[in-house]
């Protein structure tokens, strides 16, 4: 009974993917080449750029930018959030500003960054950083706010010193929230990466999309977009996995 359910599920999914592929191919052949390209042409283009090494080079360039920005964002956001977890008056003071920056569409700052810092690697890292840092900070502070005062009191009653309090209460309690922030940062950072590659000095996968659209090489553009979709899905799964791994620590079923 169960296996038949599974079988029909797989069949439905396979059918939907097959229909999608056929629709892409047929619409690509019918539409003008300037607007849309068939799946076969897109995959052939992907194979070509993969074989002559362009794809690998551009992916590495994007990856370098993305990982640098994301890691700096985590390295700044998480410790800062933890400090705010412990220093209640500072948290009270900064809370509305962190929320405001979390809600700010960071992309609006890109023209300022361009005109002040110009082209180069550093401004692009700054863009990824700005996209990614506030989710980490905001969620860590959010977690910090919910540390139960009783926990700190019990730790104090057992004569925990400051370091033990951090190691046994503050960090374990806040980490799952930080992970939620990191999951959001993973997704937002990817947007930041593409924005930086489009609007600052062109590089990586963003440059491949831009070149495809400027040269009316629709298949080339679609193959780069397909690549970004695959990367986006992979990163989202990674983020969910990270979040779920630490979710059990919250001691509640969320």
């Amino acid at each position, binding site marked *: 009974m169960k296996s038949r359910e599974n079988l029909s*599920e797989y069949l*439905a*999914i396979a*059918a*939907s*993917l097959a229909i*999608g592929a056929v629709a892409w191919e047929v619409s690509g052949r019918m539409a003008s080449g*300037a*607007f849309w390209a068939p799946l076969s042409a897109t995959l052939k283009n992907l194979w070509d750029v993969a074989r002559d090494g362009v794809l690998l080079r551009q992916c590495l360039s994007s990856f370098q930018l993305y990982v640098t920005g994301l890691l700096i964002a985590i390295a700044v956001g998480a410790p800062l959030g933890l400090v705010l977890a412990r220093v*209640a*008056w500072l*948290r*009270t*003071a*900064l*809370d*509305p*500003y962190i*929320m*405001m920056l979390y*809600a*700010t*569409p*960071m*992309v*609006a*700052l*890109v*023209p*300022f960054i*361009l*005109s*002040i810092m110009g082209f180069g690697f550093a401004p692009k890292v700054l863009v990824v950083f700005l996209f990614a840092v506030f989710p980490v900070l905001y969620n860590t502070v959010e977690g910090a*706010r919910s540390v139960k*005062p009783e926990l700190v009191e019990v730790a104090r009653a057992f004569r925990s010193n400051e370091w033990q309090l951090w190691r046994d209460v503050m960090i374990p309690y806040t980490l799952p929230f930080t992970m939620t922030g990191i999951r959001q940062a993973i*997704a937002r950072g*990817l*947007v930041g*990466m*593409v*924005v930086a590659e*489009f*609007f600052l000095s062109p590089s990586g*996968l*963003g440059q491949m*999309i*831009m070149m*495809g*659209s400027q040269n009316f090489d*629709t298949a080339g*553009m*679609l193959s*780069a*977009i397909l690549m*970004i*979709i695959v990367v*986006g*899905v992979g*990163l*989202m799964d990674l983020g969910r996995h990270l979040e779920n791994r630490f979710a059990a620590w919250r001691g509640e079923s969320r």
Partner: protein
Amino acid sequence: MSSAGAVLAGAGRGTSDDVGPWYAAPIVLKFAAGLVLLSLWEAGVRSLAPAYVARPSGIATVFFRVLSDSQFLAAARATLGAVVGGLLLSIVFGTVVGLAMGRIANVERGLRYYINSLFATPMVAILPLLSLWFGYSGDTRLATVVFAAFFSVAVNTCDGARAVPVEYLEVARSFRARGLRTLFDVVLPSSLPYLLAGVRLAAGRSLVAAVVAEFFVSIPGLGYYILFNSRTFKHNEAFVAVVILVAVGVGFDAFVNWVTRRYLPWARRSG
């Protein structure tokens, strides 16, 4: 607003028995922190950056002049109109698709990979394609907003429709409610909190989408206003547009929070 309330409650719980001095009151702390941040910004720009870089005093002097500028108002109307229009379209279609996916297994199986992978895609990547299809016009901006907002509404509504407690559906069935009645009276209200969480996410994404689309296709709007003025080194004027965007983002968030608390008391889901 809700977070400020939570902080007040939290601070009250921590320090209720020892009422601190007046300068430890949350409102004073918040205000002081704002002053400190602004003066740090002002001092940093004055000592380190070129004169054209935006700083609080410069923004304050041009603020009301920019706000009464008809060109700026037209830009704000265009951007916010596209955001609101795109959001409404996304909410309507996203709810329909999300409910169908949540309640009908084969629809979910058929659309799962498309919806989830496009949800994970940074919409900026698709912008060049949209500009090919819709031309260098406002349509591209609207399409980008819809693309950015639709999938988060659909994904969240689908989660909500699947999380409807079985008991509710059983009660509805034992009262012989028809399919459509069950949908509107049980499934939809029960998944509304999820839907609203999706709308909050969608609102943030659609602001980003509208601004990016304006950068890309150079159509009048707040994003283009920022781009144009920062290129001509009028950073203070450009920053006024950023302030408006932030205000809209924060304001909408607060509005959805308020709606959730006021009209959906059964929503226990905060995020």
